C-alpha cells in the first residue's frame, strides 16, 4: 500500500512539472524544470526496484543532458511568448492517444503480478545461473555485459555516431546561409 501511495505522489509531481514546462517561456527555467523531471523519474525507479536504472538516470539523464541543455540555452536568445501553434488538432490527437493507451493498459497484467508472462520466460534462468557463471551478484550487470553484450556494443556505436554528428554540425561552415540572408535583406 505504501509503495502505491509513494508512486502516486511522485507521478502527480511529474504531471505538475510537465505542465509548468509547457507554460514557461524562459529557456533556462525550462531546462531547470527538465532536470527536476528526470530526477523525479529516478526516484520512481528506486521505488520500482530498478536501482541501476535510477543511477544511470540521475547521472546521465539529469546530469549530463542538463549540462548540455544549459550550455545550449546560454548561447540561444531568451524564449519569446509566442502564440501556440496547431493547438486544436493537437488536443484531439493527445486525447485520442491517451484513450487508446488507457484501453491497452487496462488489458495488461496487474502491476507487480509475479505470474505475468514477462517474468516466466528466460529471466528465471538468468536469476538462477548468472551467479555461477560470472560470480557477480548484480544480475543487471551480468545481462548487460555478458548475455547481451552485443546490444551494449551497438549502443556504443550509436553514441559514437551521435558524437561525430554533433562535432560535424558544430564545426561546419559549409551550411552558412546567414550571409545570403543578410545580402538579400540589404537589397530590399
Amino acid at each position, binding site marked *: 500500500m505504501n509503495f502505491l501511495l509513494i508512486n502516486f505522489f511522485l507521478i502527480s509531481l511529474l504531471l505538475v512539472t*510537465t505542465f509548468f*514546462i*509547457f507554460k514557461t*517561456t524562459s*529557456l533556462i527555467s*525550462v*531546462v531547470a524544470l*527538465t532536470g527536476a*523531471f528526470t530526477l523525479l523519474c529516478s526516484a520512481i525507479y528506486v521505488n*520500482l*526496484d*530498478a*536501482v*541501476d*536504472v535510477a543511477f*544511470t*538516470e540521475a547521472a546521465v*539523464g539529469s546530469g549530463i*543532458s542538463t549540462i*548540455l*541543455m544549459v550550455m*545550449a*540555452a546560454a548561447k*540561444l*536568445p531568451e*524564449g519569446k511568448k509566442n*502564440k*501556440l*501553434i*496547431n493547438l486544436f488538432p493537437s*488536443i484531439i490527437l*493527445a486525447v485520442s*492517444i*491517451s484513450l487508446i*493507451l488507457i484501453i491497452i493498459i487496462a488489458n*495488461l497484467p496487474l*502491476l507487480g*503480478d*509475479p505470474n505475468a508472462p*514477462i*517474468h516466466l520466460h528466460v*529471466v528465471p534462468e*538468468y*536469476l538462477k545461473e548468472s*551467479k555461477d557463471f560470472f560470480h557477480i551478484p*548484480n*544480475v*543487471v550487470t551480468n*545481462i*548487460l555485459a555478458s548475455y*547481451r553484450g552485443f546490444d551494449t556494443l551497438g549502443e556504443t556505436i*550509436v*553514441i559514437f555516431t*551521435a*558524437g561525430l554528428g554533433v562535432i560535424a*554540425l*558544430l564545426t*561546419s561552415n559549409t551550411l552558412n546561409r*546567414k550571409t545570403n*540572408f543578410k545580402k538579400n535583406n540589404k537589397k530590399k
Partner: protein
Amino acid sequence: MVGGLFIIITSQNYLKKVIGLAIFQTAVFVFFVSLAKVLDGTAPILTKMANVYSNPLPHVLILTAIVVGVATSALGLALVLQIYRNYETIEEKEIQSLELKSDK
C-alpha cells in the same frame, strides 16, 4: 507521455521541442520499468536475505535506451544551435517568414 507530445507539436521554440522529445522518452522508460516490478520483490542483486527479485531484463533495456536518448538530444541541440547561427532565431514562425522573404 502525451504531455511531451503536446509540447512538441504546440510550442514554436525549437529548444522546447527537443525538451518535449526528452520528456516523451522518459515517460516510455517509466512504463517499461513498471512492467518489471514484482510485488514484495527487491532489486535484482542476489543476496542470501531475499528470494523474490524484480525482473532485470527491462532494466537492462532501459539502461541502454537512456544513454542513447541523451545522445539523440545532444544531436538535436547541435542542430538547434546551427539553426540559430544561420537564421539568428529559433522560433518556427520567424524562420518560415525569413524563408518566404528570401524566395522572392
